[in-house]
């Protein structure tokens, strides 16, 4: 080959070379997951029809492989629990497990799901949210569950529209408490007409048409029952229109704080005062509004340290024509929104819902994934540049507080338009690469396997609390390797209506050994492990 032609060929080959991004492959069919979401959509455009339902990773039988629980939508439709067969396939065990949750009446729409071991028996329980129909399922430890909602005292009001929820131990008594985000005061008998009065143009209403409702905090009494502590704790703000919730210790004072993403009103950051009460510090912290001081339509949220300064940052997905928001935590009680300069501009047009900050390529920093989908099914009639179905987004952390949109380079599975809502992350095949499940309104979910191309080393920690709650939720884990130091928290509560794997996964890049792991348990106990091997699932018991 002559010189110039050779150079051209090399240039072409470089252009065609695989990039460094990971690849996601849709393995839903191979996994034999045949769940289909039913939205219950009607011409009446009841708002709840378009908000979708969540999904949870829950290793309900403690076999070391995360199983899947899908929440359905329409009244009468069945949720589904799929057992992970360890070979890439799943088996529907809903009927045996008794978690279909298909009762509750004509308006019992189901929405979200939380996972935690509220009775510390070593088995993960389920809390399913909905419209007037929240259900707490106690895991009996034998593959079956029992509805203990009434006995536990966590039932919702008949018109209470609960969305995201999560378990955490806010008072360090070793028992998991329950936070439930509530959306708006919607009544089926007072459903306004919104949109043009023309065939096909009726649209789902703007949330401004409805009042917000207070979120709920249930304190775990340690005897299988809960007490509604919302008002006493100071989190019952009726202004809220909560859709997403996440927990982190934002100021590293040892107490878990709460962040709530609200739709069209400001978001809440509840600082845990350490005495059973919380103070909303969103105004002071600068995480309630956009940089212009305007509220956005918050949907999903997650918190974790994306810039490596040791303090958890905040990420919130927002409405279309609003940037998804990345707030960097400066560690002094103040956050700075950096969405634009961080490289998240491509999130402007899509409407973001489920999200997770996780190390998709095991390179030692946290990346961002977002599933998108508009809420107005006929939005194209009003804004031709928008669509109901949208593509997911994957942002790779490229360091320095900056991200790169690698969605188009991460496999055809991310090039599919869907009405994305729930998103949950787990390493379902225990190969060290984090996989993703996404739910869509009125459609099948997708299980996206991370093929791990070019991935680094990793460790996964399954915490076993003794004085602390049994799965160590809220523990702070500091990992030191030759490549640096990462501070993370065990927290499965993030995204939208969904619950992630309860094990902590940490990407380690090229590090061959972990020099030191320090765990601060919720009980206050400190534990240090040294010279820990990489690429393993490490079970750590609280001393």
């Amino acid at each position, binding site marked *: 080959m002559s010189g110039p032609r050779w150079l051209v060929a090399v240039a072409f080959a470089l252009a065609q070379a695989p990039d460094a991004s990971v690849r996601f492959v849709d393995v839903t069919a191979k996994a034999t997951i045949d769940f289909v979401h039913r939205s219950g959509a009607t011409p009446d455009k009841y708002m709840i029809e378009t908000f979708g339902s969540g999904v949870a990773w829950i290793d309900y039988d403690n076999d070391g492989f995360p199983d899947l629980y899908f929440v359905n939508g329409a009244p009468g439709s069945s949720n589904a629990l799929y057992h992970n067969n360890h070979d890439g396939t799943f088996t529907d065990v809903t009927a045996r497990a008794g978690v279909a949750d298909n009762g509750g009446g004509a308006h019992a729409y189901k929405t979200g799901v939380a996972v935690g071991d509220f009775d510390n028996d070593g088995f993960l329980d389920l809390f399913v949210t909905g419209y007037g129909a929240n259900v707490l399922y106690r895991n009996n430890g034998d593959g079956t569950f029992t509805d203990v909602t009434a006995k536990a005292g966590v039932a919702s009001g008949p018109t209470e529209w609960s969305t995201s929820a999560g378990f955490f131990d806010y008072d360090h008594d070793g028992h998991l408490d329950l936070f439930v985000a509530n959306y708006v005061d919607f009544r089926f008998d007072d459903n306004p007409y919104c949109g043009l009065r023309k065939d096909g143009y009726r649209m789902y209403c703007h949330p401004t048409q409805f009042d917000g409702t207070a979120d709920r905090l249930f304190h775990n009494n340690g005897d299988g029952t809960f007490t509604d502590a919302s008002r006493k704790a100071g989190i019952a703000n009726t202004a809220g229109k909560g859709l997403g919730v996440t927990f982190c210790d934002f100021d590293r004072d040892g107490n878990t704080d709460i962040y709530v993403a609200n739709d069209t009103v400001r978001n809440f950051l509840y600082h845990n005062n350490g005495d059973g009460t919380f103070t*909303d510090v969103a105004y002071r912290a600068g995480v309630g509004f956009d940089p212009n001081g305007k509220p956005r339509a918050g949907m999903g949220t997650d918190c974790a340290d994306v810039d490596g300064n040791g303090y958890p940052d905040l990420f919130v997905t927002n409405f279309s024509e609003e940037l998804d928001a990345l707030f960097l935590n400066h560690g002094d009680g103040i956050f700075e929104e950096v969405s634009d300069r961080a490289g998240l501009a491509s999130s402007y047009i899509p409407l973001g819902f489920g999200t997770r900050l996780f190390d998709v390529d095991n390179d030692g920093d946290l990346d961002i994934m977002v599933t998108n989908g508009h809420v107005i099914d006929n939005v194209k009639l009003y804004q031709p540049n928008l669509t109901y179905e949208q593509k997911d987004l994957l942002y790779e952390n490229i360091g320095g507080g900056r991200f790169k949109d690698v969605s188009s380079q991460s496999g055809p599975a991310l090039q599919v338009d869907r009405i994305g809502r729930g998103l949950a992350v787990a390493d379902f095949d225990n190969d060290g690469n984090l996989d993703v499940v996404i739910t869509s309104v009125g459609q099948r979910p997708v299980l996206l396997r991370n093929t791990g191309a070019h991935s680094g080393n990793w460790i996964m920690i399954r915490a076993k609390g003794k004085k602390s709650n049994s799965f160590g939720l809220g523990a702070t884990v500091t990992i030191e390797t030759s490549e640096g130091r990462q501070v993370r928290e065990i927290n499965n509560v993030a995204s939208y209506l969904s619950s992630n794997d309860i094990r902590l996964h940490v990407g380690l890049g090229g590090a061959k050994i972990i020099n030191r792991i320090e765990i601060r348990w919720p009980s206050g106990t400190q534990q240090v492990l040294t010279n820990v091997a990489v690429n393993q699932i490490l079970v750590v018991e609280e001393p």
Partner: protein
Amino acid sequence: MNAFVFACILLGGIAGVLAQAPLHDRLERIRADLFSRPEHLDQDVRDLKEILAADPRSVEAHTLLGIAYRAIGTQDLMGESIAEFRQALDIDPSLVPVRLYLARVYLDLGRAARAKEELETALTQAPGNPQLLSLLGESERQLKNPSRAVEVLQQTLKADESSVQARYYLGLALLDLGQRDDAIRELERVVQSSPPVSDPYLTLGTLYLNTGRAAEAIQTLNQGVHIDPRGLELHIQLARAYRTKGLLDKAEAQLALAAPKDGAAPAMSAYQYQQVELDLNLERGFVKLQRGQLVAAGDAFKKVLAMDPNNEQATRGLAEVNRKKKAGGGK
């Protein structure tokens, strides 16, 4: 309408809310700003949030922030306005003026049932309060109970004959009852008191126009435009009045003032603005038809029918365009 009632409420209510204010001076400055320097709204919002950062339970800051968001007036911020008022009421449920503001926002959003709930609660705390009663009357009217509205508003005016707000609502309620002459009489009394907001001028001007009193309509609507030069409906009705008098150049000039400016089209196409957009195109159609510009007239009527396929005026207008085209007239 909104600004009119709001101004009345502000004058009467805010002083009481602020009486026990912490950070009093700063809040006083913002309060003065809010009512006199609308160009400072963004700064006021920032300042109020700073105050709330220091004191998240400041009823006054929540209230003023609600007022600021209400004044900015976009739909998203109306939700935030409600949220701020509700936070203030959560801290102190006895604040009657805040409940009044909240009811006002609900009415702006067409949520009359919720407005009525708030007003009834407030009236248990301040029985006979004319401001509350007049908004209650308007709520009843919006809930399609015009007789009950008239009853409440007449009761209000008995207690306070000078209430411009109650009289304005009474005019609207009488109109809903089909008592047009009585309505005009009440609205004329409102306009004679020179209220500083444009809604009464628009309502009365439109009524004059509908009763064939084009000259009075032009005069009244021009008074409204003087108060609110950006009032789109005022310009559209004024165009209609000029067209009625055959003053087509003036009519087109008014329509140009009502038309969305470059880059504003998407917002104008949003469903919240559908009535304005529809009225604009309907009037444009009639002006063009009268000028013999049949293609432009046809296009305008078609736009109306795209938004409202059953619109009788546009259907008739388009039929007239087609008839004239067949007859070979126009261009």
